[in-house]
């Protein structure tokens, strides 16, 4: 019995029990991770997880049931249970639910992977992490850490509409971090991002990072930060490095354009959005330089796939075009409820979790400048790099970010290092102040986006480049 057959048995049972629509995902995932600390491996773990999750729609009410048993009988029971749960939902029912049409596909898709990360010897991986952390310790870090993580996921999706799609997604990433501890405070430097860099690629991604080559610099900078002057307080011109800007995009654009948030479905837990659907197509989100795309087709980015977890084919569309809000991240039911004609942004982090609206690759299109030009054209400002903390209100408007490091920019040149940099603002006002944007786009990956109940961890991608913003409040103090 193939996994497609398992899924189809579940869907058939759901329909027999009274569902008007049903789908099933069989997922098999292998996960491997290693953490090193101060020259030694402190955790090496590998996980294998497989099971089936079934969605059933009865009237306007949904039910979902998941079980790790992939036998025919268990699949049929799962389908029937999902339908029974949907019937219970109907006791507190909402407006009529429908699904926007999608292409019914019979297809396979696999992400590009040159070097299978699970085939790389553990000893080689361990050597990389332990050597990097030893180097950071030798350069003065009090705590030196390194990690890698690998996900190898196969999915088989079937629906009562006739979908039959299998996908093989391989993701991996790695990073290093040095912490220096002074009198009453800690300073951190990370490479290449605060939690590492990730993509839907093989081990070649990790090889390209050159963790060892950056270990000494990272540690030196964490020590230097302990005695650097404090980031000043006030309003100034702010230049953000791409590793910080990708998180700014994630928090203040990506989550804000999630249609389930806009519709209020996440109101109690994740929050809502400041965006009002009546303004879709007319609201000014940012300056003319701001072009944000939703694009799961980007090769190698962490939010890439062939089909989402409702079977909708991957497709590029704009979320913000020339500064105007024009698109949302949607699922088939949320799109139908909002009167939109597209979906394609629904995923679950495992077989036991309900697929929900998730960022794919949400990021900036390139601007006309370079970072060198941006700095050269700035008389007085601050350049901040690498995220250290992030906080944003439940409507995704008011944010405050802390960065690991900053530099003065005076008369077109990068100056002194500054410690404890932070900036705060309101999303649309901030994005409207963007007056320079670099062409140096990189795809950044976030493997730890939390959303939903029970909480799910999403993998999202974010094309980003350095950019400049005017009149930003920096240096908020405790």
């Amino acid at each position, binding site marked *: 019995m193939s996994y497609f057959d398992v899924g189809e048995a579940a869907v058939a049972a759901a329909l027999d029990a009274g569902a008007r629509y049903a789908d099933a995902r069989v997922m098999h995932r292998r996960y491997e991770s290693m*953490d*090193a*600390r101060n020259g*030694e*491996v*402190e*955790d*090496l*773990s*590998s*996980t*294998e*997880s*497989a*099971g089936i999750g079934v969605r059933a729609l009865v009237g306007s*009410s*949904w*039910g979902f*049931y*998941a079980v*790790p048993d992939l036998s025919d009988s268990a699949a049929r029971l799962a389908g029937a249970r999902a339908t029974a*749960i949907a019937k*219970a*939902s109907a*006791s*507190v029912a*909402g*407006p009529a639910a429908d699904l926007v049409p999608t292409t019914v596909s019979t297809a396979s898709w696999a992400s590009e992977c040159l070097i299978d990360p699970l085939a790389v010897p*553990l*000893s080689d991986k361990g050597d990389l992490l*332990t050597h990097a952390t030893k180097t950071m310790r030798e350069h003065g870090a009090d*705590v030196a850490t390194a*990690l890698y993580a690998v996900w190898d996921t196969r999915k088989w999706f079937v629906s009562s509409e006739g979908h039959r799609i299998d996908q093989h997604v391989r993701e991996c990433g790695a990073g290093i971090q040095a*912490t220096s*501890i002074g009198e*009453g*405070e*800690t300073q951190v430097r990370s490479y290449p991002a605060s939690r590492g860099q990730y993509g839907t690629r093989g081990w070649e991604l990790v090889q390209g990072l050159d963790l060892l080559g950056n270990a000494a610099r990272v540690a030196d900078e964490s020590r230097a930060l302990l005695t650097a002057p404090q980031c000043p307080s006030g309003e100034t011109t702010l230049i953000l490095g791409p590793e910080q800007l990708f998180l700014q995009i994630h928090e203040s654009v990506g989550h804000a354009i999630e249609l389930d948030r806009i*519709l*209020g*479905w996440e*109101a*109690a*837990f994740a*929050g809502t959005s400041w965006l009002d659907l009546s303004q879709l197509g007319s609201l000014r989100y940012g300056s003319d330089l701001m072009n944000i795309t939703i694009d799961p087709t980007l090769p190698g980015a962490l939010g890439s796939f062939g089909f989402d977890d409702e079977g909708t084919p991957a497709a590029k569309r704009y979320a913000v075009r020339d500064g105007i809000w024009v698109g949302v991240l949607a699922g088939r039911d949320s799109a139908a409820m909002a009167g939109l004609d597209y979906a394609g942004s629904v995923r679950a982090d495992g077989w036991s*979790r*309900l697929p929900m609206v998730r960022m794919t690759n949400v990021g900036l299109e390139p601007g006309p400048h370079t970072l060198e030009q941006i700095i050269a054209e700035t008389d007085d400002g601050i350049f901040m790099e690498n995220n250290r*903390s992030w*906080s944003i*209100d*439940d409507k995704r408007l*008011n944010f*405050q970010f*802390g960065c690991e490091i900053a530099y003065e920019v005076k008369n077109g040149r990068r100056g002194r290092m500054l410690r*404890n940099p932070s900036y*705060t603002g309101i999303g649309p006002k901030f994005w409207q102040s963007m007056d320079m944007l670099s062409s140096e786009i990189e795809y950044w990956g976030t493997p730890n986006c939390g959303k939903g*109940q*029970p909480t799910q961890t999403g993998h999202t991608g974010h094309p980003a480049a350095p950019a400049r913003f005017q009149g930003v409040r920096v240096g908020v*103090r*405790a």
Partner: protein
Amino acid sequence: MTDVEQITGQVLDLARRALPGGEVEAAADSVHRALTRFANSFIHQNVTEDSVTVQLRAHVDGRTVTTTTTLTSPEGLTALVDRTVAAVRSAPRDPGWPGLSGPSPLVLPGQVDAATRDASPDDRAARVRAFVDAGQGLETAGYCQTGYWAGAYRNSNGQALHASATTADMDGIVRDRGADGVSRRSGRALSELDGAALGARAYAKATSQRDPIDLPPGHYEVVLEPEAVADLLTNFAYYGFNAKAHAERRSFAEPGTTQFDDQITLYDDPRRPFDVEGSPRSRLVLVDKGVTSALLHDRRTAAAAGAVSTGHGGDPSFGPMPDSFGFEPGDATVASMIAGVERGLLVSDFWYTRVLDPRQLALTGLTRNGVWLIEDGEVTRPVRNLRFTQAYPQALAPGRVLAVGAEAVPQPSRVFLGSWTAPALHLASWNITGGAAG
């Protein structure tokens, strides 16, 4: 013998045969988790998960590997052992291995409520219906969850434990023209959740926020309701008493030192009677009348510190964390706290709090679900949400705690089977750094 005991026995036998002389441990967790979620006053998500997760850890020739699977057929368990054997041969060396736990009995029993274990989607929907009805036509959102856990642990050092427990949680808001009121409750039994009472509290909070004002930044005296105090517990739990962070000088905690006001007592009272390393757990007081009295240990941090594990093994890279953390209640009421404030804030809830510096436990975050101005002992006006930047230990330092509420409310935590139990607090100062509007 339960299913999870049988599974751990099978895995341990297989692993001992495959790795003679090695140290091996097996754990299995069976979880039934059902969550009925509502928004816009209807059930928009209704999920149930039945899963069994098996973990095998092996330490052989100075190398350690942890493997996990959800495949519990004989073939799946054999594959788990084969994978472990293959990995441990090429794994990097692990000089910090603390050894396995030895035979020791449970201190706490698990508590199972049969009605909660067997709760149906209709049982949860009835609580949701009651909450929605209490919203009196206003928009409502939230969830009702029931869960059952059965776990077993066995190792080659002779330790063998098993237990089971139930949990029931409800969390909801009522929305009045964009202003939200919240209420939350966690218990061991579904019967502890009163959807109507929770909805009524949220309704009252939501409808008292019309025409809010903006306030300037500054240091404000505050009365924090239990929902807001639960956020303090979250951050103390993860960063404050973690022995790994302490050993690396990343924590403010200094055992034996008076670091809090003498009205503050903090404890962990776990529902899950043993951890993933097979260490029995018991009620642990971490702050005793203002004095930091203990740290949380797993086997690695305990070995390094010459201490014993407190049963808080979990993520070895992050370090030990509690999952049922609480404040001991005091003797004040929220009304008496408000009556004692000349000018200050009543804060319902905190949101998106993030650590700026772990050693100071300095955080930024926002108010959510209601904040009100208190003047001359009375709540006078609702206030728009505010951003704060505050060192949490500083806010609870000696002399800074003006009163502790008499009712400690158990609330859902981020951990399945966990809870935060918090009373209201009256604090002398909270550092507001800006408004959420700009």
